[in-house]
């Protein structure tokens, strides 16, 4: 199988001296195209940091990240942004919705930033699946945590990216909705041959993945 995400000797240190935090401490990871990978680990183990590195949102202290044959380190900030918005759908742990935009606008925001036309039928389908059709005109501040999370998911899916990086996408959802969302992710993943990397604390959801990677203290503890 073809490798789409590859990290070599990936390290990310924060601070220095006494306050040095080794968020990532040498991660070598290969993820295959079209696979659904779950990342688990205790809180503070470095999962979010790893996901940010994979998406080119942060710059490694050491080591490299290769996404679909592109060395992220080679890209300048502008190129990295364009690369990311075309290829990667991100679901953030804290949703990261734009407060001045309503739900619909938030969902199509990355696509329109890229100058593309949103595939409205597809997006509406996703919205319906996520149960957001009544909330399209609401501002993020007026949504519950779970609703905000679903908007973030819809936004990540809207552009049909080849890679979806999800940071605890079901953390705020009840078990049923959570299962539905993961089901949706898997389904669209299969349909569009998407590679999914998902952080989760929920062992059941982790079990739905093709592969589980466990991170502890910035290293891969088991996979």
């Amino acid at each position: 199988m073809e490798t789409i995400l590859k990290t070599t000797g990936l390290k990310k240190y924060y601070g220095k001296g006494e306050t040095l935090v080794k968020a990532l401490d040498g991660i070598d990871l290969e993820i295959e195209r079209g696979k659904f990978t779950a990342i688990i680990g205790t809180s503070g183990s470095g999962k979010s940091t790893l996901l940010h590195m994979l998406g080119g949102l942060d710059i490694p202290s050491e080591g490299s990240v290769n996404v679909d044959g592109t060395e992220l380190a080679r890209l300048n900030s502008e190129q990295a942004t364009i690369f990311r918005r075309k290829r990667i759908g991100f679901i953030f742990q804290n949703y990261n919705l734009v407060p001045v935009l309503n739900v619909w606008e938030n969902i199509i925001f990355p696509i329109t930033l890229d100058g593309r036309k949103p595939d409205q039928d597809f997006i509406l389908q996703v919205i319906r699946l996520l149960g957001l059709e009544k909330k399209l005109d609401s501002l993020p501040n007026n949504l519950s945590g779970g609703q905000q999370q679903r908007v973030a998911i819809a936004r990540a899916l809207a552009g049909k990216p080849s890679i979806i990086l999800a940071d605890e996408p079901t953390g705020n959802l009840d078990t049923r909705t959570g299962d539905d969302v993961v089901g949706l992710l898997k389904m669209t993943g299969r349909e569009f041959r998407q590679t999914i990397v998902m952080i989760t604390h929920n062992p059941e959801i982790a079990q739905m993945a093709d592969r589980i990677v466990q991170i502890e203290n910035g290293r891969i503890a088991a996979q």
Partner: protein
Amino acid sequence: MTEKKNQETFNPIKTITQRTFRKNRSRNLVAVLAILMTTLMFTTLFTLAQSMCKNLIEMTFRQTGYDAQASCKAITPEQAEMLAAHPDVKELGQSIVLGLAENRQLGGRQVEIRWADDSYAAHSFAAPTTGRMPQSAEEAAMDTITLDRLGIPHEVGQKVTLEWRKDISDPDAEPVQAEFTLCGFWEGNQSGYASMAWVSREYADAQTQGQLSTGTEDGILGLYMVQVSLYSDNNIEAAMDRILADTELDGLEYGVNLAYSPEMGATAIQETLPMYLGMALVFVAGYLIIYNIFQISVAADTQFYGKIKTLGATDRQIRKLIYGLANRLCMIGIPVGLILGWLLGAALVPAFTGIIESGGAVSVHPLIFTGSAAFAWLTVLLSCLRPARLAGKVSPVEALRMNDADTPRRRKTKRSHTGESLAGMAWENLGRNRKRTVTVICSLTLGLVLLSCFYAKNTAFDMEKYLAELTIADFELADATSGNYIGGYDPQGTTLGKDLVQELETMEGVETVGHQYSHQLVWQFDDQTTENLKGFYTDALLADWARYDPAGVDAFHHAVDTQEMNAVVFGLDGIPLDAVTQPQYVMEGSFHPEAFSGGDYILAVGPAIAEKDGHPVLPVPSVGSTVTLEGRSYTVMAIVFPLDPVDRGASEAGAPEAMEQHFILPTDTFRQNWPENTLRKLFFNVDDAHMDTVQNWLDAYTATVDTSLPVTSRQSMAQQYEAETRSTAVMGNTISVVIALVGVLNFVNSMVTAILSRRREFAMIQSVGMTRRQLCKMLVYEGLCYAAVTLVLSYLISALAVGVGIRGMVAGGFTTFRFTLLPLYICTPILLVFALLIPFVCFQNLESQSIVERLRMD
């Protein structure tokens, strides 16, 4: 839901720009205010500069007396006609001089009796604004200065008598008494060297008998002159030469109007340069503060930019967003700032140009507006540059994490044993964003320090010291010819008649009096004096002197060669004698009143230099040497400083052109020698209670009895000084106030943003148990900490700046240094009130939303 599908193209950046702009009303207000103030300052500066320039040019024209490009004094009417026909000559004005009006009341003011055509009059700022130019032999037109002197109402049809001589070089020539009917007048030009009294061509021709002269060799009667106006101000000399060559008049002498000469422009710039530099300095300071205000506002959004960057906004798009927001702010701030700035500038112009007669014209040059708008816009763009770069450089995740604190790493803080007090927390909060805290404190401190310095400098001026040099008595009256530099002083003048003097000296409230008489004679001086002169006037000094007064240098050489010069002897008693013999004005020797009154001693008046200024000798007879004046010998007792009220005045009429040495004798001795000389100046002091009565009496006297009596009062001198220096005072105060305002605005802004940006944090600490009283208290403590640090710094730096800097700056001159920090004392409570009030008001505002609402807020 289907209507969503039909939604027209959604432009994400534009939408966000619009909505962010609408969302941050209060913050926009501060930013708009900042932009407005920048624009206002620039516009005011430009308006002032442009108007000053305009007025300065106008003033130089008025000083040279005309605004045509060139003038010729040695030209015949035929030649003038040829010139006028040349296509490059726009206009040619002609005039014929008859003589100078010598009415007694005109003493000190040159009034030229001339015929002129309309063009010449118009270009000489002497075209009648009421009435018209004279047409018949009985008519004349003149300016209001002349009319006022002659005591004639400003009314066409009034009878005016002018007295003049056909040959002014002959003092005994028969004066002509000519009566005219006033046919026109105009506002006089104080800064001009002379006033014009226009007569008709008919009258002129009758007086000259048609004899026109082309030079001043044989008097000025019939002197024909023209003014040439060209189409262009550039290269006047070359243009004139070309015109002369074309008309085959090469070699014709002409003068280029000094006001057009490049040196004139250079002097104008030189004179205003220090002012511009000072202004620029202060404006840079103000600009930096405003820059800070705006930058704080933009920097607060960095987190937001990081967020949309993680969602795929490129650096270019973020820049577009930042500039889009800035431009919206500019669209409101700049136009308002332009209007207000121009109005402020217009209001300030009179203060700046008040001393320039006819000044006060406010420029509306388009450059003012385009320039200020461009500068303000540039300032804003520059302020955006950094946040834009920051948002671009920082990795998106980091930008996301950035919040109010500029360093994410947590510093280890030493906890006191008593746990965390509110004040301690407040202090720590200040340290959280050290860069901002430092910026705010610095800008506010800068404003306060500048304010203190300006104030200290302004108050250091000592009016008493200033007046002491210019006036030595409450009132100083002089003979009408005392200041007549053209006709000369008449030692037998009658202005200060016995009756007048008697009446004044016995007037109620008059405390002390003093007199000055003067006499001029040719004086043979001794070898020692010659040596002194040579020793004082070194080659360097002479070269310097020659640059502005070559005739004076010639007179010096002549005096040294022949050992002969003019001596002006003043007879002094009372106020002037006491004043000039004060220890600080005695340059050499020492003054003994009893010995002096004996009549064998004389005082020599020295040069106007401070102390000896490094000169080995003074250019006057040495102390102890003998001076012989008209047969009588005196011993030089001391050399005194040429105190203006004593020494100022015209030379005697008919005296030969020569260097002058001034001497002082007691009045009694003087009166014995020259009994027929009349009083030249009368000095008297009046007690405060009668100051106004005496002033009113004199006003009435000069209005009705003798319009020519020159009166100088200490009061009017002080007023005049105030009028002259109002511009600098207004400038300093305006700038200080603007800077202080900007500083306060900055303080308010940063406190408000600091509080608002922490809404969520406050909600959090409230949700975990801090009561609103405690929170409010903490915020107030924070404000007080801010104010306290600022004040402590301001006091320290101001004390240093005022105590050392200003003290040094104002040393010498008419100043008395007084250490004062008054502006700080005034600002202290204001600042403290703000520090208390802002957190309180902001907190009230916060309280209007529930904790939950605030927790959810982004």
